[in-house]
């Protein structure tokens, strides 16, 4: 309703000053005014009559008429209605006269006959606007005013040209005034409508037709037009005839919808990203982008129209929005092939969803997302697959899903999660009843907490460090010195506050203390008097340090309560019985489940995988090239002898100029030569097992390959990506080089090299030309299909050589890069970008190895074994065990299971792509960047807030027994725990690094909590709920620091710590160097790996506490009754 409230009669201030009535007539008595008016009119009539006789008329005439008209209309405007009989006050004498003599009509007709010049037209518009805006009488109810007005307006409507530009602002202002007074006297609408139908024929709501063209204008003009239209909408909401007219005879809805399309096309294709943690558009992000502001204004207007308009209009508008904006514009935009565009469109969609408040508009968007198919995939499917990509696209997608989850929409949850769980095939038959059970005795919570790795339980801290810790730090660490538990406040103990909440006012709360704040003052409960014999007494003493956990409990309670509240009108409880598991339609199978295509699929999946990886890489590059990277990230300077890290500032602006270079320089001769060189190298690497590469690094990509395999992608799209990849990769190559773009292109291009080595038979360099992409695709396919043969022959090579081959490759990369070999000092190299590439490399090496060995065999095995389910079921586990015996640090296990690779037969339970992708992302927590992990755990947290027993039991009931093929959250977390522990064992200074990471995150959280009260963006739902958070360790998992400034501050604040951390990471590396010729770059990649892993360890521990808290809070949550009985 803010729209309507904005529409206060706005003219007063400005108008009165300009048209300050001649002799302040309000003080004069009506009689005098009438006399003055008559006097003016007499003179005007004189001129008019004169005009009638002599054609032409002088400028003097015009001026005279204008002056008199001015005075007359002022008098009319100032006139008060006469004391009438009862409710309808009589007209004032002037108005009576105006009506009797039809003065305004005569005047306007005179002007029209005279030939309206823009000047006098403008003057008239202004006069009428003043008249209508300031009049004390309902002038528009009188046809003596209305008719001339319509006549004037009609004259403004040029059939060809529309309204002359000079008149626009006055016209809109006048129309706005008309609409304002119409909103006051609804009868005016009817009059306007009827008068119009006589004169204008089809476009009989003239004011409306005049306003529509201004809908999408920017600035005040557009705002006034939209305000006016909204008033028409609101006024016509109860007038069926007018509504029908608007729906059937006006272009209002199509203009609105297609206008959005037009505006969307002007939005930036690429979002300039500030800060690593950026993942969603906030108000402060887009308020400076004029095209976005324009779009958001129009979207907001749509939202308002949907809110106030007649159902007919609303339905039509929604229809047009769906078919005229979402489907033709948003759909393709979301499927754009370039990663930048994907990021942008996903972020836009997220923003739109967060901005819409009207349920039916939201429904239109959701319907589009859930049901509309673009290239056979629903939008939802497409968006889901993006989560598995790397970095920014993943973050933006996660953020979108967070928004979606926050809608608490049954339809969405059904498509996303519930329909896969409904048949209950994921649980053992005997367990179905347990679906509804809650964690009554804290068993699940205990289980989650027990997964906190030993190494992450920081027990004792050096006292020197203790002092600088934030106050709440101590809570989790259990260090009693930081906070004394003396809280003399006699407040209600927290648990009793809970009771009170549930008992509602049946038992009045302890009146002396507000029970509201008790959850956040846990110490109250601890120091509260306990009867000495109560067992709580001793136990609470022990728990004193664990108040951080209370924050999590509080958060969890709030989350669950809100979710319960929002879901109270759902159609079913989803408790494993209703809807009945038997009646539930079988959910769609995993995308790659067509057995007949297995072999082909597999090849495809290979290509897919490689392409996807390349795409992922491209993402990384794109991000690097687009971000300023100044938020706590590091510039890595490489010299031959040492690596130094310097905090990154804004100094880097990367390479927009690289593009023109590449087209001219990517000559095929160079590339093929390179390709040849690479081929030899990579042939070695294909076949050579390289144990060191097994742990860690390659994981993310590997997960991607699996996930990618589950995608059914149109070849065309892949091709697009492919070409796009090449483009971005070339961008990326410049990241490696010197900052000035004078670098010759041909010297170093890791990306394309990788590409060409993957696709061995590719005769062409991977250029950006779209024309070659088709070809590339073909050769890609061939290349990968020939892999098995190739690897079989060369699979005898030893470990040693494999090691060397990678190193050689790296050496080669180093040498090839002139920036590195020629110019030793101060080359900015982006560690992550390089790390990406390195990872690609290792990944490929490892993948080939896998391919050549077990995979090839297992493929053959599985081709035959595929139909028999039982074998398959046990297989992944076996493999996992085997690998964990030989290489305990091997972490490939969970994700890489041949079963999934070949696609699961229909009968096998499948928990859906959302769960799958979240779990595989979780499984790779160690490799995810900090921000991905923060978002990721946030999404899982939100999902786990859902009170529907199917969801709750699947995620949080650790005692549930699932079918063997169904991976549970606890399993995934178990494997992460495992990896963290292995990692910690391998790094002796892990505790120190952990503490530093902790401190950085706490600092970040503190900063955020300081930041949030002021200038909190008013994005409803997601943000509003977060504001109330208190600074706590819960803010470690801070899911809302997406403000660039905030991130920057945090970075600055915590920089010192992190720098220490970073250096110690490095020193650790140097000390623990694994002998041999590990190059500097490898070390850096390792450093990044360490950094991610350490952050992961922190986030992981906190996440487990969150989950435990959720499990506990679910047990004590009370549902809300459906809202039917309650007034809405």
């Amino acid at each position, binding site marked *: 309703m803010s729209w309507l409230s904005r529409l206060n009669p706005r003219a007063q201030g400005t108008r009165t000053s300009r048209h300050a009535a001649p002799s302040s007539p309000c003080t004069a008595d009506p009689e005098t005014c009438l006399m003055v008016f008559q006097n003016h009119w007499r003179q005007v009539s004189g001129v008019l009559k004169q005009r009638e006789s002599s054609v032409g008329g002088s400028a003097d005439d015009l001026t005279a008429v204008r002056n008199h008209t001015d005075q007359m209309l002022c008098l009319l405007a100032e006139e008060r209605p006469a004391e009438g009989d009862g409710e309808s006050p009589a007209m004032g004498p002037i108005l009576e006269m105006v009506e009797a003599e039809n003065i305004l009509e005569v005047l306007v007709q005179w002007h029209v006959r005279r030939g309206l010049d823009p000047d006098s037209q403008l003057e008239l518009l202004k006069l009428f606007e003043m008249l209508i805006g300031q009049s004390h009488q309902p002038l528009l109810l009188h046809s003596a005013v209305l008719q001339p007005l319509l006549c004037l307006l009609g004259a403004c409507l040029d059939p060809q040209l529309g309204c002359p530009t000079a008149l626009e602002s006055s016209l809109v202002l006048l129309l706005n005034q008309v609409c304002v007074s119409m909103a006051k006297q609804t009868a005016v609408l009817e009059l306007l409508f009827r008068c119009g139908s006589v004169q204008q024929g089809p476009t009989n709501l003239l004011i409306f037709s005049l306003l529509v063209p201004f809908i999408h204008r920017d600035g005040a003009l557009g705002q006034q037009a939209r305000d006016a239209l909204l008033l028409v909408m609101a006024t016509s909401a109860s007038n069926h005839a007018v509504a029908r007219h608007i729906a059937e005879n006006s272009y209002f809805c199509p203009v609105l919808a297609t206008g959005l399309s037009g505006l969307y096309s002007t939005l930036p294709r690429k979002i300039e990203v500030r800060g690593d943690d950026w993942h969603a558009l906030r108000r402060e992000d887009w308020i400076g982008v004029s095209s976005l502001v324009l779009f958001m204004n129009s979207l907001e207007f749509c939202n308002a129209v949907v809110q106030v308009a007649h159902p007919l209009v609303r339905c039509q508008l929604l229809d047009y929005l769906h078919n005229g904006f979402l489907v033709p514009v948003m759909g393709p935009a979301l499927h754009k092939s370039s990663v930048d565009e994907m990021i942008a469109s996903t972020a836009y969609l997220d923003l739109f969803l967060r901005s819409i408040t009207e349920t039916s508009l939201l429904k239109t968007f959701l319907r589009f997302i859930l049901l509309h198919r673009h290239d056979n995939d629903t939008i939802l499917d497409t968006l889901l697959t993006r989560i598995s990509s790397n970095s920014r696209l993943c973050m933006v997608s996660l953020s979108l899903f967070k928004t979606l989850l926050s809608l608490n929409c049954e339809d969405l949850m059904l498509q996303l999660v519930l329909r896969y769980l409904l048949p209950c095939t994921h649980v053992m038959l*005997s367990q179905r009843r347990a679906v509804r059970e809650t964690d009554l005795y804290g068993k699940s919570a205990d289980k989650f907490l027990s997964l906190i790795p030993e190494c992450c339980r920081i027990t004792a801290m050096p006292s020197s460090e203790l002092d600088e810790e934030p106050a709440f730090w101590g809570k989790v660490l259990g260090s009693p010195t930081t906070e004394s538990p003396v809280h003399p406040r006699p407040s209600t103990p927290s648990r009793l506050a809970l009771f009170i909440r549930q008992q509602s006012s049946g038992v009045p709360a302890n009146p002396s203390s507000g029970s509201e704040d008790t959850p956040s003052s846990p110490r109250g409960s601890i120091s509260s008097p306990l009867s000495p014999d109560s067992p709580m007494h001793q136990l609470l003493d022990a728990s004193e340090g664990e108040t951080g956990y209370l924050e999590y409990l509080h958060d969890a309670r709030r989350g669950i309560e809100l979710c319960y509240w929002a879901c109270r009108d759902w159609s079913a409880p989803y408790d494993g019985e209703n809807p009945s598991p038997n009646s539930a339609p079988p959910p769609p199978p995993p995308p790659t489940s067509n057995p007949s295509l297995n072999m082909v699929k597999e090849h495809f999946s290979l290509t897919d995988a490689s392409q996807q990886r390349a795409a992922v890489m491209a993402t990384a590059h794109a991000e690097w090239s687009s971000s300023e990277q100044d938020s706590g990230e590091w510039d890595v300077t490489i010299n031959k002898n040492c690596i130094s890290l310097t905090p990154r500032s804004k100094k880097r602006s990367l390479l927009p100029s690289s593009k023109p270079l590449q087209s001219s320089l990517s000559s095929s001769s160079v590339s093929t030569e390179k390709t040849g060189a690479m081929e030899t190298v990579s042939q070695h690497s294909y076949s050579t097992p390289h144990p060191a590469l097994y742990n860690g690094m390659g994981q993310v990509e590997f997960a991607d390959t699996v996930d990618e395999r589950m995608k059914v992608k149109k070849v065309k799209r892949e091709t697009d990506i492919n070409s796009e990849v090449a483009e971005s990769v070339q961008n990326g190559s410049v990241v490696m080089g010197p900052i000035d773009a004078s670098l010759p292109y041909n010297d170093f291009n890791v990306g394309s090299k990788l590409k060409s080595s993957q696709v061995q038979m590719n005769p062409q360099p991977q250029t950006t030309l779209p024309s070659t992409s088709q070809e590339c695709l073909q050769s890609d396919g061939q290349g990968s299909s020939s892999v098995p043969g190739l690897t079989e022959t060369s699979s005898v090579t030893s470990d040693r050589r494999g090691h060397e081959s990678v190193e050689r490759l790296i050496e080669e990369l180093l040498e090839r890069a002139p920036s590195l070999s020629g110019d030793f000092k101060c080359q900015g190299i982006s560690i992550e970008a390089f790390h990406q590439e390195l990872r690609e490399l290792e990944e490929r090496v490892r993948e080939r190895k896998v391919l050549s060995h077990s995979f090839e065999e297992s493929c053959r095995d599985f081709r035959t074994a595929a139909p028999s389910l039982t074998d398959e079921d046990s297989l992944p586990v076996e493999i996992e065990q085997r690998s964990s015996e030989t290489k305990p640090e091997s972490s490939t296990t969970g994700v890489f299971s041949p079963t999934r690779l070949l696609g699961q037969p229909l009968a096998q339970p499948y928990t859906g792509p959302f769960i799958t992708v979240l779990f595989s992302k979780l499984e790779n927590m160690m490799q995810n960047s900090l921000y991905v992990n923060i978002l990721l755990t946030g999404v899982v947290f939100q999902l786990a807030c859902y009170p529907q027993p199917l969801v709750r039991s699947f995620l949080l009931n650790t005692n549930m027994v699932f079918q063997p093929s169904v991976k549970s959250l606890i399993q995934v977390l178990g494997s992460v725990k495992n990896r963290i522990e292995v990692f910690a064992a391998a790094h002796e200074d892990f505790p120190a690094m952990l503490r530093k990471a902790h401190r950085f995150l706490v600092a970040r959280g503190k900063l955020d909590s300081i930041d949030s009260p002021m200038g909190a963006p008013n994005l409803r739902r997601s943000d509003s709920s977060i504001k109330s958070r208190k600074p706590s360790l819960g803010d470690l998992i801070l899911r809302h620091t997406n403000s660039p400034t905030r991130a920057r501050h945090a970075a600055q604040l915590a920089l010192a710590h992190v720098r220490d951390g970073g250096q110690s990471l490095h020193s650790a590396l140097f000390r623990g160097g694994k002998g041999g010729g590990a190059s500097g770059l490898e070390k850096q990649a390792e450093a990044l790996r360490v950094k991610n892993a350490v952050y992961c360890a922190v986030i992981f521990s906190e996440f487990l506490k969150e989950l435990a808290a959720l499990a506990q809070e679910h047990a004590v949550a*009370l549902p809300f009754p459906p809202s039917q009985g309650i007034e809405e």
Partner: protein
Amino acid sequence: MNPFWSMSTNAGRKRSDSEEQSGQGEQRSSPARPPLGKKQLPSIPKNAVPITKAASPASSTQSANGTHASYGPFYLEYSLLAEFTLVIKQKLPGIYVQPSYRSALMWFGVIFIRHGLYQDGVFKFTVYIPDNYPDGDCPRVVFDTPVFHPLVDPVSGELDVRRAFTKWRRNHNHIWQVLMYARTIFYKINTMDPLNPEAAVLYDKDIQLFKSKVVDNVKLCNSHLFDQPKMDDPYAISFSPWNPVVHEEAKEKMFAHKRWPEDYKGLPVSGLSWVKTGSTQPFSKEDNPLQT
């Protein structure tokens, strides 16, 4: 400080729904559940087993007295809270309980008997939950004033709960069942192995005398209604004579009360759902014109 309880208010409010529910209540008190506990597989997934084994010596000691035992109080509190939530969800007819301010292991309660031999009885009681809950014995129920009843100890006022819950089984037995049982004894009188043999004998042999004794007892109990609570606890249930100034307002609040989430501002008016009841298809519900 003390919450005011008004007998008339509460009795009047609850009467209607309690009658409907009293029938089902009996069956509910002994739900047939599959013996899930016994057949449970190890909750740790297979691939995680090596991990836990490696770390198990450490973690087992830890769960006993280490860091993570410090979550213990949360478990106990939450278990009791969860039990209390279950009680609320059961909407037991005529029974009100309120955990003590001092200990979650002690609940104050009152039971209103609406018909039968004990009609008009208002019996205050206290529930004592063993501190090793849920692994200990069943909770004890002690009436503030010993009720004349075969199963209630005439001296201590303790109800024989154990006969209904010979062994307290976590996951199967819940406190609401004990409360339900405490109500049932007043409607279905059992004289086997009585704690109050006199009452048992009278009931079997001389029902008229039994009845009159019960009436006397009810009167006695009700005459002590306005006594100060035995336990000096802010959350102890205390009765006071109807005082319009105090109780009218409280009553109105009670009836007008609607529960909202802690901070519900900015939430959509109602949850989003366009799923037709009984369907599992998204957007299967007809467009309703209500969406204005």
